[in-house]
């Protein structure tokens, strides 16, 4: 997968101004960056939910700007995506949620669907939760069910949108191990969008740091850790001081405090 010189604007506000990302087959690629830099937007562009204003995105050798209509769905069938909140269908049980893509895209007989779903749920440790409704699951469990659903059709590329947000250390550890397992055992190409540097460093082969609409650094997580670039250092060490400002642009603090009420 190749993202080449992508520009993307929303209401004349520039989100990306020439982003380049190369994802190699069978590897885990981390896309990192401060909140609000458009990491999730990049996933929307890759899955053809939005079109770049300029530049080219190639997935499975196809320029997705030229893929239209049913071909978009054919392309998406080869990808899986794990949403930040799981995005499970709330009117279905855990089993039905995982079975959903299989029922929609195949004519497999029911006994086979059952075995397939149970196998995937076993791999995320939730075979015992088949009859629960999404409202009965914890955040970590919902994300694991969503992961089982994302891999049920054995996708070639798996996209993870902020998979570690809001999880307790145990659930986070489980998700980290699962991402690694999916990559090792199934050879799935993984793209993980996150700002959790520590977790990503343990699993990612390649990483990209996006800030201000551009890729400011790329390489292995270790290379990024050794980088002397000010933006990279600020992000990796979590410092409030640096090129990425803590304060949203505002008038002078003291002047504003002393001003009369308008």
């Amino acid at each position: 997968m190749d993202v080449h010189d992508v520009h993307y604007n929303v209401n004349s506000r520039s989100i990306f101004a020439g982003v380049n990302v190369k994802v190699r087959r069978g590897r885990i690629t981390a896309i990192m960056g401060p909140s609000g830099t458009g990491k999730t937007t990049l996933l929307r562009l890759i899955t053809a939910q939005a079109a770049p204003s300029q530049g080219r995105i190639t997935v499975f050798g196809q320029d997705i700007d030229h893929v239209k209509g049913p071909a978009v769905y054919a392309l998406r069938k080869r990808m899986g995506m794990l949403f930040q909140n799981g995005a499970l269908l709330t009117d279905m049980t855990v089993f039905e949620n995982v079975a959903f893509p299989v029922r929609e895209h195949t004519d497999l007989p029911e006994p086979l669907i059952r075995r397939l779903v149970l196998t995937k749920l076993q791999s995320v440790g939730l075979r015992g939760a088949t009859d629960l409704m999404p409202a009965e699951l914890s955040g970590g469990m919902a994300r694991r069910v969503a992961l089982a659903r994302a891999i049920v059709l054995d996708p070639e590329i798996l996209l993870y949108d902020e998979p570690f947000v809001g999880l307790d250390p145990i659930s986070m550890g489980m998700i980290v191990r699962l991402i690694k397992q999916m990559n090792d055992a199934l050879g799935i190409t993984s793209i993980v969008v996150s700002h959790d540097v520590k977790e990503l460093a343990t699993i990612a082969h390649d990483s990209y740091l996006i800030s201000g609409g551009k890729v400011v650094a790329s390489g292995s997580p270790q290379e990024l850790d050794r980088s002397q670039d000010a933006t990279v250092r600020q992000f990796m060490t979590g410092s409030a001081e640096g090129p990425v400002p803590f304060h949203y642009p505002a008038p002078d603090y003291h002047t504003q405090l002393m001003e009369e009420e308008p």
Partner: protein
Amino acid sequence: MSQGRNGFLLEGVRRFGAVVLFLMSLLVQCVPALGRPRLIVHQIYNTGARSLIIIMLSGLSVGMVLALQGVNLLQRFGSEEVLGTAAALGLLRELGPVVTALLFAGRAGTALTSEIGLMRATDQLTAMEVMAVNPLRYVAAPRFLGGVIAMPLLAGIFSLIGLFGAQLVGVGMRGVDKGSFWSQMQDSVDLHDVSEGFTKSIVFGVLCSLIAVHEGYNSEPTAEGVSLATTRTVVASSVLTLLVDYILTAAFLN
């Protein structure tokens, strides 16, 4: 002032165009959705069966009020035996479809809009898109078809219960002759009256379900966005039902 009026008009035209385009995409997706009768039956249950109690209670009360007012009015002309005809025509041609549509908008329409709106807000529709499942086909079309099928059924039940209520008060409490009540009705009400009510309820079914599904599907993915969409569903469905009712009534009487 004129610029403001033009802007308002332009926004109205834009909204109408968006609804028409949405309806066209929805109708295209209704064809494959018909191949999944289980989903449609589920939605008929959701919108229809779950509205039964409110429809039956309202039908009974409207029928009873109709009988009270009818007897009072008809007694002035000494013709209370035509109460059955008056109640049947009023319910079948007008009150049945219209009041059912208004109740449908408040009960089922709001439920449809908020359900689809929340699905949008919690990324469920996006997740379907990414799983290569068209949410218009899987979510919107069965709900739309369910509403269109449920509305005439509900309107029919409303009219029948209303007639029962009218008989309860007219015959049971106000002393109208039972034989006259039913025979007059049998003589005067024909298939044309039934088909007028049926046509209206189908049109209102399309209108109310379309508005509910459209508003939910296109709502802003926030708590405020879903709440605004739900309000718009009730307001637009109710006002349009009454306006379209006038047009249909005029067309049928001509």
